C-alpha cells in the first residue's frame, strides 16, 4: 500500500491506497470527487484533466503516489458557494456543455491557459484544448467561452478584484 498526502482544492487530504491506484482513482473513488471523468483511461481524451502544481495533467496517467506532496485542483475546486468561476459561467452561457462529460476537463485545461496567458489568441486556445476531446458540444462554443472568460478575468484583474 502507498500512503499519499496531497493538497486537493486547498485542503490537505491523505489516503492509503494500492500502489497501482491512479490519481484519477484516488480522486474519484477514495476522495469522492467524481467531477473528474474517466473517458478512455489511456490519456487520449482529456476527460480526466486536473491541475497538478499549475499544470494540466491527465489524471488517468499519473499514479496517486506521484501526486504525493503536490497541489491538485479539480473541477470541484473552482466555484465558491455563491459564485461560479468565470470559465464555468462562460461555458454555461455559451452552451458549451451539452452532455457535459468533457466539460470539467476542458474547463481545467482552459484555466491553466488563462493562468499563464490572460489574453490568448484563438490559435492558442485551440492549442490548449487540443488534448480534450468532445463529441457533442463541438469546440466552437468552448473557444467562444474561453475568450469571454478571459475578457471577464482581465476586467476583474483591472478592478483589483480577486
Amino acid at each position, binding site marked *: 500500500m502507498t500512503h499519499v498526502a496531497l493538497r486537493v482544492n486547498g485542503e490537505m487530504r491523505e489516503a492509503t491506497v*494500492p500502489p497501482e491506484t491512479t490519481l484519477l482513482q484516488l480522486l*474519484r473513488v477514495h476522495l469522492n470527487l467524481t467531477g473528474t*471523468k474517466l*473517458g478512455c483511461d489511456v490519456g*487520449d*481524451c482529456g476527460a480526466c484533466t486536473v491541475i497538478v502544481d499549475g499544470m494540466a495533467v491527465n489524471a488517468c496517467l499519473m499514479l496517486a503516489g506521484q501526486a504525493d506532496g503536490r497541489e491538485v485542483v479539480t473541477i470541484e475546486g473552482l466555484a465558491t*458557494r455563491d459564485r461560479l468561476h468565470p470559465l464555468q459561467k462562460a461555458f*454555461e452561457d455559451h452552451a458549451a456543455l451539452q452532455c*457535459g*462529460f468533457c466539460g470539467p476537463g476542458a474547463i481545467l485545461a482552459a484555466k491553466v491557459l488563462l493562468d499563464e496567458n490572460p489574453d490568448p489568441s484563438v490559435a492558442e486556445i485551440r492549442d490548449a484544448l487540443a488534448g480534450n476531446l468532445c463529441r457533442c458540444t463541438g469546440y466552437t462554443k468552448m473557444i467562444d467561452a474561453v475568450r469571454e472568460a478571459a475578457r471577464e478575468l482581465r476586467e476583474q484583474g483591472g478592478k483589483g478584484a480577486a
Partner: protein
Amino acid sequence: MSGKQKVQEREKTIAPPVGVEMLRVPAVVRPAAYPIETLVPEARQQTPAVGQRASRVDGRLHGLGQTRYIDDLAFPGMLHARIKRAGIAAARIVRIDTHGAEAMPGVMAVLTGAEIPVNSFGPSLQDQPVLAHERVFHAGDGVAAVAAVTEQIAVEALEKIVVEYEPLPAVFDPLEALKEDSPKVHPPHGNVYTTKVIAKGDVEAALAASHRVFEGRFRTQMVEHVSLEPHAAIADWDANGRVTIWSTLGRITLARGDVARTLKLAMNRIRMVGTIVGGNFGGKNEITQEPVLALLSRKTGRPVKGVYTRGEEFTSTTTRHPIIMDYKTGVTREGKILARKVRLVLDGGAYCSWSETTLGKAAILSPGPYNIENLRVEAYVVYTNKTMTGAMRGFGAPQVCFAYESHMDDIAAALKIDPLEIRLLNAFGEGSVSPTGQVLQSVVVKESLLQAAERFGWREGRP
C-alpha cells in the same frame, strides 16, 4: 421582462407561510448554492424559447462537475463487473473453465452464457447472445463475466478463465458474404437477412434511351460513436426478486422489454432508471451488459456496476454500417436524369440490431433529392463476423448522401456542366414525388442551394 424579474414577480405572489405551515419543511428545499434562474413561460403565450438564446438547465451542474453519470454513482457493498471477450471472430466454444477465477480472493461470482435464461436479444431480430454460448460470432463477443470487490481483481480474474475454441471459417467482406458458398455467420440461415427493393418506371428502356450512362462505386467505412462516457450500468437485484437497473440508455422502455425477455422476468419486476447520458448518437439505444449485471447481482446479492473500457466500446458495441454503393445513371445531353439504378450492400456485422431501420432509410434516400422517373433500388444487409452495426445519427442517410452527391459531381464533370446547375435541373420541387410515392410539401431544395451558392460566392469562386 428578464428571466430574473419574472422569477421575482412570481415569488411576490406566493403568500408567506402562517401558523402551523411555518413549521413544515418545504416540499422543495430552497437551493443553498448555485441558484439557477430559468425562464417561466406564461400560460397561453407563444413559447418564449423561440428566437431566444436558451441555456441548458443542467449545464451549470455539468460545469461544476456535480452531474452524476453512472460511473459517479456508488452503492454500499457494490461489486465491479468485467466481461471476458472472445478475441476470435468465429468459433465453436468447446469448454469454458471458470474455476481459476472463482478461486480468487475477492471474486464473488462468475457468469457464463449457459446461465442466462433467454440468451438472445435485439430490437428487430433477436439474434444477439447476451454472452456467447456454444458459438462465437465476432471477436468482441463476451464469453464470461466476473463480479469482484474491486475492478482490478475483476480484470485479473478474467485472465484466469480458460476458454477452448474450435475455430470456424469466418467472413469479413460483405460482398463475399453475399455469395452462396460463403461461410454462414448464423447457420442454417443465409447471410442476407433483410432486403428492400424500390422500383419505378422502366429503368432498362430509359437507360438504353439515354445520351450517356455513368457508373460508379462508392464505399464508406465503419464508424464508432465514441461517446465520451462509455457504456455503463448498475444492477441491484433485491431480496423481493425485483431488479433495479441504472443505465446510460436513451431508450429505457425498450431496454426494459429486452431485459425482461433475457431474464425471463415479468416487466413489473424490473425498474429501469435512465441516468444522464454522456453522449449517445444512437450508440446507447439498446441493452448491452444489463442482463449480465442483473444476474451477477442476483448471484451475489449485491449491487453490481459495469463500465466498458474504451476498447470494448470499439469492439463490442454497435457502429455505423459500412455500405458498398453501386450507382448507374442515364442522363440527357443537358444532364437531366432519365434513369437510375442503385445497389446497396450494407455490412451488418454479426448481429441485426437496427439494421432494418438503417436499410429502409438508406434505400429510400439513396436516389437523392432528385426527380427520377425510372428507378430501381436494391438494398441488402448481410451478416459478417465483425462488430455489429446499428443505429447512428442519420440511420444510413449520410452514407448514401456521400454516394449520390459524389456521383452527381462525376456526371457534371464529364458533361462539363456546373455542379450547381445539374442539381437545380434535377432537384425536387413543391409537389415532387419521393421514390416511395410520397408527395412532398414545403420543398426548398433549389432555394436552399441558390441561397447557399450566393452566400459563399459559388459563382465568383469558380476558377
